[in-house]
């Protein structure tokens, strides 16, 4: 009876966006991954309470939402920094210095991969092939690309992000339209 919880974490806007997403599909459940993206956009990560709220919206068991959040890498199950720095470690980037890039970033920020800096600004994670192999090594800042990253210039990147330079992370300077090759 007292089972009804106050719907705490998800904002009305998030709920409205999820409802709209559900209407796009013949079966509403198809909207679950996009819905979890919306939740993460609002909260920065996907806490278990939020997963439970999503489960109620989709009328599915919380365990099934849990099984999705643990399967797909993009959902953060613990708080992350304001900027998530995802360094690609797959073959094309690895051949061109991704190990050094990740190492320099972690050293500069004083964290291990997966950890958040104490000031809550940065989390460094490694990603699998991000599909920017001809611009290796690459990384993403909050899911936006930085290409042809120079591992020796990580301190510049960090400084610019800290300063709130609007160019970061919207686009890396080197990212321009490729020529028709």
């Amino acid at each position, binding site marked *: 009876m007292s089972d009804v919880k106050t719907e705490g974490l998800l904002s009305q806007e998030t709920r409205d966006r999820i409802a709209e997403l559900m209407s796009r599909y013949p079966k509403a459940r198809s909207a679950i991954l996009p819905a979890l993206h919306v939740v993460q956009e609002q909260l920065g990560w996907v806490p278990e309470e939020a997963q439970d709220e999503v489960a109620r919206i989709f009328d599915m068991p919380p365990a099934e939402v849990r099984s999705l959040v643990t399967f797909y890498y993009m*959902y953060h199950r613990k708080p992350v920094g304001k900027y998530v720095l995802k360094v690609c470690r797959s*073959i*094309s980037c690895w*051949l061109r210095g991704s190990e050094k890039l990740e190492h320099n970033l972690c050293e500069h920020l004083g964290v291990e991969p997966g950890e958040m800096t104490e000031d809550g600004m940065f989390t460094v994670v490694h990603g699998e092939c991000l*599909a920017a192999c001809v611009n290796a090594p690459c990384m993403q800042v909050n*899911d936006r690309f930085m290409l042809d990253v120079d591992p020796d210039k990580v301190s510049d990147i960090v400084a610019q992000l800290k300063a709130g330079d609007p160019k970061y992370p919207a686009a890396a300077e080197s990212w321009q339209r*490729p020529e*028709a090759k």
Partner: protein
Amino acid sequence: MGTKVIFEKLGIDGIESLKVYQKNEGYEGLKKALNDYTPDELIEYIKGSGLRGRGGAGFPTGLKWSFVPKNPGKPKYLCVNCDESEPGTCKDRDMVTYLPHQLLEGIAICCYAVGIEKAFIYIRGEMLEGAEILEKAVEEAVKKKLLGNNILGKGFNLDVVVHRGAGAYICGEESALLSSLEGERGFPRLKPPFPAVEGLYACPTVINNVETLSTLPAIMRKGAEWYSSMGTDRSKGTRVLCLSGHVNKPGNYELELGTSMRELIEVHGGGVMGGELKAIIPGGASAPMLTKEHLDVSLDFEAIAEAGSMAGSGAVIIINDKTCIVRTCLNLDQFFEEESCGKCTPCREGTKWLVDILTRMVNGQGREEDIDLLKSVCDNLCGKSFCPLGDSATSCITSAFQYFPEEFEHYVKHGCSILDAKKEMAAN
């Protein structure tokens, strides 16, 4: 530098907007399809172009469409595979970012031919920018009656939904993509039934790659005959090759099928960077390695298969002679271990075993029996996993044993890489 089909319009400023795209023959291919062909005629026309799927398997596109039942009594769907995740592959990203309307036009042509009114673009979650660009392009096209209801006044309806994944390589496998799109874990499904008969929501479904669909507008505008005049006997047209790794000019190069590996690397890629050529992975991380002996192999589906590898996703990864092959295998298999979906035991356990063994070799703790153990794990994994991911994890090791066995032997005998030993000898 040769005829362009997919990237013909790439250099045009602002081509990502509908206005500029339309000024440059945009949606003319769709008009032609709707005005001049019945759906059945259109399928035959595309069959005649010789276009084959660019996702990896190279299946003839028109033939794939023809497998979809005409009047199944339930909806039919198109799923566009834009879950580009095969290491080395980054062509879809350019097509989506710079030529979104070309993809949408291709989608509309395909859906008209097959009688589909709902299409989903499954774009990998990491391509946030691409998804935003596509959403905007869909909106623009609907406003101009190029998508949506009663397209071009011809009574053809098509709703396109951009769907973001959330980080799982396996979802590029078509049956796993369907599971994911239905809101499940991305587990592959048993085939048959094939998606053409029972796909999304158990309805007939076409699954096509971004590059395949992006080729259609030009085929409609310039003719199937024009398209099939390019390429080799069995691999027609052009293909975007993603050249990465140790080359001076990495890039996405659109070349006629039949171009040699040598031309791609030396002429277009500006030659090998930082050393001599050691190995070539010609079709993404899943493809077996080749060596400099194979420089004159042509980059079409048949020739690469004959050389003992596969053309796969068109990702050509170059490895120079300063690179340790055992470490390379470890990097490749760390990917497959991380991305194994866990559904079947051979793949879930096998990929972990491969990484464990290679890790201890690289750490100087390899055992002599590890070489046979690696081969045995590969043997128990390849062909015995539920989907091709398991096979893929063995490609690098099996081919590395074929071409560079001494590197593994050196590791287990001396606890270090043969390259480090050579360096030390040179220093002394």
